[in-house]
């Protein structure tokens, strides 16, 4: 996984609440057997009309946000289906950081597995950065310092955010969880031995 250090970019304002993963990536794109290539279909039904033409009023279709790496949005982002195609499409599009006041649980965890930083700010702070994103093109997200900064009206504003230290370390170091867990494989074997002696029926079940 690519390491997350610092990003400088403008930020896409998408002030809607409860954006679900069906909205992030609709079902017709879940038939893929690959993780890549989904970025062009991110927010498909908001972004393209029935004839696959870009809807010019949608924020992702506006020139100034073309290469943005930051998305600012409403609360409970990523609710619904567990599809990891949602963070895959976000990452494939080039967005590396999301700012919202809350996320659905499964989506939030999926982000960290894909090098995406989901920042949680208070509702009022989100409102402020949303307004700034409409005007300012200069956002910086520094994960090390846990700080979002932006320039508005020639003034530098800074907002600090909290993040679980383990999740932060994972992003900064680009860690592969599976490798870490396999380092503790002896614990897993011990657990299985203990469970097998206590609840043996769990280990003898087959489709009859």
């Amino acid at each position: 996984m690519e390491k997350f250090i610092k990003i400088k970019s403008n930020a896409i304002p998408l002030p809607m609440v409860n954006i679900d993963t069906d909205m992030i990536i609709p079902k017709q794109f879940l038939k893929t057997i690959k993780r890549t290539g989904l970025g062009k279909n991110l927010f498909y039904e908001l972004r393209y009309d029935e004839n696959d033409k870009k809807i010019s009023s949608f924020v992702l279709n506006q020139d100034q946000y073309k290469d943005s790496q930051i998305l600012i949005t409403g609360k409970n982002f990523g609710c619904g289906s567990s599809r990891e195609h949602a963070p895959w499409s976000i990452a494939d599009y080039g967005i590396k950081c999301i700012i919202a006041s809350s996320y659905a649980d499964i989506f939030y965890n999926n982000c960290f597995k894909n090098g995406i930083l989901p920042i949680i700010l208070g509702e009022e702070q989100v409102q402020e950065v949303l307004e700034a994103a409409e005007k300012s093109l200069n956002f910086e997200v520094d994960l090390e310092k846990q700080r979002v900064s932006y320039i508005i009206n020639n003034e530098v504003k800074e907002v600090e955010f909290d993040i679980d230290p383990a999740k932060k370390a994972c992003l900064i170091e680009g860690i592969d969880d599976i490798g870490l867990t396999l380092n503790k494989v002896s614990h897993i074997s011990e657990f299985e031995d203990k469970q097998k002696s206590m609840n043996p029926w769990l280990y003898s079940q087959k489709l009859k």
Partner: protein
Amino acid sequence: MSSPITLYDKIWNDHIVTNNDDGTSIIYIDRHLVHEVTSPQAFEGLKISGRSVRRPDFTLATADHNIPTLDRDKGITDPESKLQVETLEQNCADHGITYLSMNDNRQGIVHIIGPEQGFTQPGMTIVCGDSHTSTHGAFGALAWGIGTSEVEHVLATQTLIQSKAKNMRIDIQGDLPIGVSAKDIVLKAIQTIGTAGGTGYVIEYTGDAIKSLSMEGRMTVCNMSIEAGARAGLISPDNKTIEYIKGRPFAPSAEEYEKVAQYWMSLASDEGAKYDKTISINAKDIIPQVTWGTSPEDVVSIDGSVPNPKDEADVEKRKSMMRALEYMGLEPSTQMKDIKVDTVFIGSCTNGRIEDLRAVSKIANGKKVASHVNAIIVPGSGLVKKQAEEEGLDKIFIESGFEWRDPGCSMCLAMNADKLQPKERCASTSNRNFEGRQGRGGRTHLMSPAMAAAAAISGKLSDCRDL
């Protein structure tokens, strides 16, 4: 004596492999369900890193999301869907995983076949790359949905790295009125706590109304826990749980059954266990529920009307209500019973079990589907289909004008050919009324099987108790 604890705490404690320094724990996963949509990239990941599946014997796979519910003998015509299903078949063959193919009559929606085969048992940790894995909590199993990276993690290690959730209790007291079902309970609960109300919690459902539900009804309730933001829903095991599992293919043998059942019963939450949050709902206040908007929390009683955004004080909420009404093509204050439907979908992991089909047949028996309505019934599994046919339900459905299909996820998420057209309005027994969920521009009203059957017959949203 140790202090009383919840079912969730007991299962959690019993599955800690080791506690990490950062406050997370490595949790052992007893059973893993796999389907075609969220697994190919996980198997690919294993291959790239040269890893194998640790416990193929604890893993069960089937294809459900992407398969046709008509003309199945002709195979899958959509090339992408076909490739995805074939990829799963190949991955299962390569790793020695039991796979129930589309043409096996035990195939069905993964959350229907787990319990049906006895794969789901109390006290287990169960995961699947699907958010409705919460269904299995009806058996007192800690079951939750995961993403594909976590699917790969479970395949490789049979564990997951987890942080402990908080305990929430939703207590449904008293007796359910006649004509009110498990679906109405859970829609009412989601309306009460909101679509993010359960985030960070595991919800345990308690109370007389829950105890009185069949295992099928309990699965419906736990299934939609995720629609309230909770990863998992739970119901403490009791005699109904034990009777349901007995004799099923994966169940413990007859010789050991009594001993195992005793252990299962001991897992129930202790008297006096502490919950971080408790919500109480009186069953007698619940009447049949329907959704009006594009979030599962947009719920009203069938005798109610479409809400008016003007009455909403919260600006953000008002904006999303206006957007939802525009999408749904509804005017504020319209009586719910005046809303005409074009399509009726009966099925899904929420309501595709035998009891659901019986509820539909009771309403439909001797009546006809309204002439402007296209109504389809998709059983949750091949065995549900077989059982329904043995009971003669299929004849009632066909006689009434319903289409009787083959099992799968179908129009719940419309990955196969079963989908709504733009502006088409659907009475659906599924779990999500999101924009575009059942097809681009499609308008979904969630409700119970009896209510969906009533809508099919009368051609508009109706109170099933009036039919």
